[in-house]
């Protein structure tokens, strides 16, 4: 599907989500409560079949943490960016999608490790790189004692 067709299709399919044409890829903003259901639908709807999660990242915004999912369909070759905001910035929680796209298992552990986002129902949510005594280094209010360069 082209971006325009995808935009129309997603707008029709997901009434609760906010779909907009983004700069490069179509973006879909979903509510945290609908995340898992939307993910399953994005993967299993034959016309969409987003089976390949090629990037999962966390962003620290002033009011909330945002999780960004870059999805591609290996069959149709179209791409969508799914975004979800957590309700609470300091104790962010969001459902896991690791049962939909297996690769999310490690990506979510990374986001948990560096930003402190907890993924509900994740089967193995341990810190990936750092030990348990660390804070969450990619949060904007994290203070790095060793850093010399300050901006």
């Amino acid at each position: 599907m082209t971006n325009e067709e995808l935009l129309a299709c997603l707008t029709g399919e997901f009434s609760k989500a906010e779909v907009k044409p983004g700069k490069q890829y179509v973006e879909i903003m979903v509510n945290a409560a609908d995340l898992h259901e939307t993910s399953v639908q994005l993967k299993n709807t034959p016309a969409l079949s987003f089976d390949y999660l090629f990037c999962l990242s966390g962003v620290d915004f002033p009011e909330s943490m945002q999780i960004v999912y870059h999805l591609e369909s290996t069959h149709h070759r179209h791409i969508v960016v799914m975004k979800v905001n957590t309700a609470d910035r300091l104790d962010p929680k969001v459902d896991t999608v690791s049962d939909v796209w297996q690769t999310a298992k490690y990506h979510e552990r990374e986001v948990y490790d560096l930003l402190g986002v907890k993924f509900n129902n994740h089967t193995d949510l341990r810190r990936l790189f750092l030990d348990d005594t660390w804070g969450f280094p990619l949060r904007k209010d994290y203070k790095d004692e060793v850093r010399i360069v300050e901006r």
Partner: protein
Amino acid sequence: MSETKEIIISTDKIHTDQYLVNMGPQHPSTHGVLRLLVRLEGEIVHHIQPHVGYIHSGIEKMCEALSYPQIIHLTDRMDYLSAHMNNEAVCLCVENALQVEVPERVKYIRTIMDELTRLQSHQLWWCVMGMDLGALTTFFYGLRDREHILDIFEETCGARMTLNYSLPGGVMFDIHPNFQKRVKDFIKEFRKKLPEYDQLLTGNVIFQERTNDIGYLSLEDAIAWGVTGPSGRASGFSCDVRKHQPYSAYPLVDFQEKLDTKGDSFTRYRLRMRRCKNHFASLNN
């Protein structure tokens, strides 16, 4: 009087318990420092728990305090075998965000540098793959030929591995006057040497035994776990970013995405070798 018993030894009756073995992080075959917690029963691996991050260098955090041109110097340390592609990825990102168009010449230079980087990365992969299986000669062959590419890099940008060559908006210097000739000579020479590689390793019985039908990865798993590159393509996953989302001068390069479907170690090996030949085609244009 003691009674003697007949003891029958049969290998398939020996029962062993499962046990845990720690492998790495400084194990010679875990290139790039990886620790694996392996649950074994005899020689059968039942479960592996990877512990990653032994060389995590916190580059994202460092980038927060640095300017874009400064970041370039960090990115080639992410993978010193594909330094230029990592540099270029940041450059393309910054250029995209700033809406800057780079000159045509820069696009061509970057593409040629990319392909040379890929080729030398494959050479190192090939020689250490042989070495890990105990064939030390491959290591010398691979490194000998890789030197030529590193020399070409050094002549143009002063560095051999961590190139720092791309900058947001262009490249650091123009290519050296000898560049074109040396690349063409190298291709001519290396094309002759590639059959030697095959004679040395590909047809070897031990090598075949240890790679053929070993380490099968299905297409579904490759997609689900996001296994890209030649490993994914050996399972039939069409994921060549140069074809699907071409950058720099790749839209103008005439090349085929090589796919295979068998998905075992040997297929992955053969696909990488075919890619080497592919690189010549791209470089020749």
